[in-house]
């Protein structure tokens, strides 16, 4: 059965471009221009994945409200924020509201499709029994690439898709410095340096909530980051 994706975007040209690109990958696409029509449709029938713009027509933060409402309808529904805004604050707010990923509109369509595919893959993997071969273990860290799940000392760490891929890229080759470009490539995302930096900061904080002594992600100034065991 085809996966259905809802795109909530007020810019018609962009909406249609996204819709066309994703349709080409075999998804069923529903597009909505504003929060009201989207919410009406969602109350009747939930899509398999929602891609939401933050500012919707006259509502500057309509996407956030929509995300909150959608999360109330379904706890598992994958949500991707796709926005022209690139401020740190927006990303944090969006992820805090339960979005699975936060992408700026700089992302290319193939990247977007890869993200979408990855999210679906994670959901599918979560529904299937585990495959130990896909699990990377580094000391206290264990990464299940199939399910896109991360645990530290057995405790799950809730990472966004971008964060997951960054951790995954770092932990696969411990001690190797990954520069920002490599991290972006791994995460299938185009971000500026500051955004990578803040992603890394956020990830550290999430690990530190579980283990205050966490110090595995090291900054190599001017170059990038590396995983140390």
């Amino acid at each position, binding site marked *: 059965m085809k996966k259905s994706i809802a795109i909530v975007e007020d*810019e018609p*040209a*962009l909406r249609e*471009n*996204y819709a*066309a*690109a994703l349709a*080409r990958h075999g998804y069923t696409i529903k597009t909505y221009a504003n929060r009201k029509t989207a919410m009406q449709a969602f109350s009747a029938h939930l899509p398999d994945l929602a891609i939401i713009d933050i500012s919707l027509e006259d509502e500057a933060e309509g996407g956030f409200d929509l995300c909150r409402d959608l999360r109330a309808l379904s706890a598992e529904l994958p949500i991707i924020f796709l926005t*022209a*805004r690139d*401020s*740190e604050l927006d990303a944090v707010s969006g992820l805090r509201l339960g979005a699975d990923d936060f992408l700026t*509109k*700089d992302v*290319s*369509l*193939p990247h977007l499709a890869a993200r979408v595919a990855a999210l679906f893959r994670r959901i599918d993997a979560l529904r299937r029994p585990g495959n130990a071969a896909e699990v990377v273990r580094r000391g206290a860290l264990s990464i299940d690439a199939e399910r896109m799940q991360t645990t530290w000392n057995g405790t799950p760490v809730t990472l966004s898709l971008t964060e997951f891929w960054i951790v995954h890229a770092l932990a696969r080759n411990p001690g190797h410095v990954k520069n920002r470009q490599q991290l972006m490539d791994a995460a299938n995302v185009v971000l*500026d340096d*500051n955004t990578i*930096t803040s992603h890394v*900061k956020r990830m550290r904080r999430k690990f530190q909530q579980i283990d205050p002594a966490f110090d595995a992600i090291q*900054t*190599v*100034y*001017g*170059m990038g980051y590396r995983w140390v065991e």
Partner: protein
Amino acid sequence: MSIRLQLLMVALTTLVLPWAGCQYARELETALRDSQEQSLLASAGTMANALSAQPQRVFRDPDDTAAFSAARGDLYVYPLHSQPLLDGYREDWGVAADPTPLPTTTGYAARVQAGADGRYLYLYIEVDDTHFDAEPGDVHPEHDRFDRIDLTMQRQDGTRGSYFFATGAQGPIAAQRIVHGGNDRDEATEEPRIQAYWLQTSAGYHVEARIPSSFVGSRLWIEAQDGRGNGKAGADSIDTPDGGRLFFTTEGLNGLLGTFIRGGTRATVIDTNALKLGVAGNVSADLPGDPDEKAESWYRYFMAVDTSSFPQQSSEPGRLAGNSVTAALAGQPHAEWVRGPGTQELLLTAAAPIMIDGRTRGAVFLEQAGDQLLVLRDRAVSRLFNFTLLATAASVIVMFGFATWISLRIGRLRDAAESAVSSDGKIRLDMPESAGTDEIGALSRGFERLLARLNEHTQYLRTLGGKLSHELRTPLTIVRSSLDNLESEGLRDDQRHYVTRARDGTQRLQSILSALGAAARVEESIKQAEVVNFDLRELLSSAIAAYRDGFPQAHIALETPPDPCFIRGAPDLLVQLLDKLIENAVDFCPAAGVITVRLERTMGNYALQVQNDGPPIPLALHGRLFESLFEQRQDRDDKPHFGLGLYIVRLVAEFHGGTAVADNRADGGGAIFTVTLPLI
């Protein structure tokens, strides 16, 4: 010229006040002078009227209107105030006038002067005769082989008496009276009532004679003869029947005049010949006033009425002259300002005719010192002067203070205007003096409005980059996603070129937008930056290693202290700062050049220096390099430059409590950018 100086100059125009005061004083003096003239003229008129009512007290003989003729031998009899000593000298007479020459046809010179003290008539005769012919002793009027002076006097009753003076030697003598003898020969008898003194001198001889008044009428003949017949001077009663007339002053007139006059005035009565009949009073009265009045009168020099054109008063003692006298004797009262004889002293003279039976019989002549006026004027002027000078000084001081105040306010305003736009482009909106209700306050408020509008404009410009990058992002995304879709639809190879080119274009647009929004993003990340303690040396060594990879063509040297350098700050921001400095250095460094990054510990600071070989920074740019949106590059490369790089450097340095400075290397072969960061 400063405002203070300008207003000071304006204040000096108050000096016109003393000048106006001088003009006023001059007018005042003229008016006073006029009124003094009028009053003196009135006094003269009154006196003349009073005197014309009692002619017998004014004139010896009211009916005598004979004219004075020196050629005929007329003599003015000077009033003598004391009885002179009979000694042949006239110095004790107290008469300033010189003796009158006797008429002569022979070149024999003799001079005569007459005086009277009420009881006697005094005659002084001076004869130039170097050879003394003594009288032999057998005095006889017919004999004339000796030097003699003949004197004939007509008495009041018309009878005449003839006398002569002669002597054998110098000394007191008596006159010889000539009487007709029986044999028609004249005899000489001594007249002891007429005393004289014969004085022999080197030039001739003097005879000073004293004649009782009763011998004297109104006419006399005087003749001086040489004993050897060399000549004679004067006239005798036989050859000239009308002898010289004697013009006496009027007895008692002085006292009469004294009753008319006040202090400081001299009254003189003259007859139609302008000869003085009586004088009373004194012009130099005691003037009221301070003794130091003179010292204050320096300003007379530039404000006094010019008196040099006033006529000089005649100095003849027995006789008056001048316009007033002439006019009065012609029947017209007249007043005139004159200068005293031989002095610059001002005198006011007024003359009025004494009319008897409709004819002018004489005149009253009054004189008053003009200095009184000067004293009055000086006193007024000196006060006026002091007041106006005080006022001028006060106004100059007030003006100066006011000007100082004004220029201080303007200075404050100017300073504020100059520093209103700070080097980081921030605009201070409040101006000093804006509460003022005057033009300066208005100017200040005008500045405030101007700055407010400038600020709006600057804010707009400041956010323009961010806004542009934000607003352009959506259309750019549309273009790019459309290109993505186009590629996915399957393209022919020849079409694919265009898509690739379009994609390159969007890529460049993307980097431009990113650069445009960079400063705003840095400002935002500064707001959210977390501050930690870290080793700057370690950060530098790892970052420089990365730059060596990133810019393989550049030679980057690193010099750090041997021990760790801990500072408190945001390492990410510092890396961005370093990024910008290195990018800048790489841009300006020639191919073989060296970039040196040096960390030094100085007084209380770390100094982080990035030096590069290359062209020096133009002097004019030193202060401005770190300003937002300042960009001055000669060569344009592919990368967009919005003049934000060094601005970001400064933002980060200031966030850490440090500074950023640009300078040239001492050898001029490169630039040095120094960032100071405080020690922990």
